[in-house]
């Protein structure tokens, strides 16, 4: 009977704190959003399950292993602990994902119209405005973000999951969970966040503007571009080299045509395996102590501001470019500069078609879209260099 009492005393119900209960609900909410609303399911489903698992009292899935004096294993750690410690704390998983994203990225549209890179630069203003916003919130007295935390929150505006997770792991691991969830949630909400801003800042006539078809891009340009990008990073911003180095490596494997078996595996088995582990590991950071507080509320508030500002500055930059350049671009494609690949480009296409049903902007929006990935990796590099 004694043992029965122990078992009952160890049951989840008997030990569940209110915080754990709330976090399990948060995990289930993420699972719901992933499945029923298709919110970035590849990440939010594993994150949600990770959050549920880590908050089961007594399950020990995030326990550290215990070693004896001679280094022998006394008690093994939990699965989520190993995943987080080996893959996320070290930055390894986000970098591998970035390699995979590189192998999935087609730079063709950007190479055909390189000035769209400027749109990818402008949209990064969302990152830094949000950083300032976070520091401004401190002035209310309700929040107390460090500069590292503010920078990490700003990077939500990169609209780029692995970049956000990598920066959080390097600068402010204590808010990694909230930042990752905010980043992926808002990426999924891009079709709701962006269109009103895009319409507010453009006239119907601007939105109707059709762009001329992009020139085809040859194989050599595709091969040389990632190498050139890597060299520029090496010369000017080495702190961005881990992120952009792996990205360029992935893209080079894709385009070079001589290592297709490596490229295929990178785009499939490898990125899928790492995605599962990355998601579970991020979910493991969704514990009540680090998540259920004002700071998290601020993160979600600021995150959506970051997306909105990035969208706006992207569109405004496009309008500015039209003032000085004679080859006009449709200012809507500036909104794709936030990245959120490829959701933002699709949104641009949709809003363009609403204004003019012959106006197919998808390919034109892909340029700023992938430019936004580069732009926010550069912004991330500046932050690492400034704060790291």
């Amino acid at each position, binding site marked *: 009977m004694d043992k029965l009492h122990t078992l009952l005393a160890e049951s989840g119900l008997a030990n569940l704190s209110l915080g754990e209960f709330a976090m399990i609900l948060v995990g289930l909410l993420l699972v719901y959003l992933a499945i029923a609303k298709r919110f970035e399911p590849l990440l939010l489903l594993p994150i949600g399950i990770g959050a549920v698992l880590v908050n089961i009292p007594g399950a020990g899935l995030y326990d550290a292993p215990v070693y004896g004096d001679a280094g022998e294993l006394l008690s093994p750690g939990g699965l989520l602990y190993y995943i987080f410690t080996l893959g996320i704390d070290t930055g390894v998983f986000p970098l591998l994902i970035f390699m995979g994203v590189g192998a999935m990225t087609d*730079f063709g549209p950007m190479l055909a119209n390189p000035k769209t890179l400027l749109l990818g630069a402008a949209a990064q203003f969302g990152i830094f405005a949000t950083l300032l916003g976070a*520091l401004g919130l401190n002035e209310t007295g309700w929040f107390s973000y460090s500069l590292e935390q503010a920078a990490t929150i700003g990077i939500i505006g990169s609209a780029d999951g692995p970049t956000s997770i990598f920066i959080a792991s390097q600068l402010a691991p204590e808010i990694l969970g909230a930042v990752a969830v905010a980043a992926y949630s808002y990426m999924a909400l891009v079709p709701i966040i962006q269109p009103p801003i895009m319409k507010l800042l453009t006239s119907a006539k601007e939105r109707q503007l059709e762009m001329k078809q992009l020139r085809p891009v040859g194989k050599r340009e595709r091969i040389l571009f990632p190498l050139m990008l890597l060299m520029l990073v090496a010369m000017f911003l080495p702190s961005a080299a881990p992120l952009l180095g792996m990205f360029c490596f992935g893209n080079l494997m894709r385009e070079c045509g001589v290592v297709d078996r490596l490229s295929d595996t990178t785009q499939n088995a490898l990125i899928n395996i790492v995605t599962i582990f990355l998601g579970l590991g991020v979910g493991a950071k969704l514990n009540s102590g680090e998540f259920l507080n004002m700071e998290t509320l601020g993160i979600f508030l600021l995150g959506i501001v970051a997306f909105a500002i990035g969208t706006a500055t992207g569109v405004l930059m496009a309008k500015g470019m039209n003032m000085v350049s004679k080859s006009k671009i449709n200012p809507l494609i500036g909104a794709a500069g936030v990245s959120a690949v490829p959701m933002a480009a699709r949104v641009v296409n949709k809003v363009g078609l609403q204004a003019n049903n012959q106006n197919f902007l998808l390919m034109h929006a892909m340029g700023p879209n992938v430019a936004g990935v580069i732009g926010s990796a550069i912004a991330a590099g500046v932050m690492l260099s*400034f704060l790291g």
Partner: protein
Amino acid sequence: MSELLQEGLQLMALGMGTVFAFLVILIFGTIAMSSLVGRFSKPEVAAQSGGRRKSGAQMDQIAAVAAAARAAHSR
């Protein structure tokens, strides 16, 4: 204005400056690269990104010979 906020402003200026500077350099680099490629190379059929292009040379070598071995040898 708090010191933190000042640092934030500094970081913003530095960050946006670097992002623009880098991407502008990248634009010029890309344009130069594309024009060089266009000038110094034979007219090239527009490439399709990723995927398998040429078939023969693509396969892993060991696998290729293994396949050859199988085909030629053990019927």
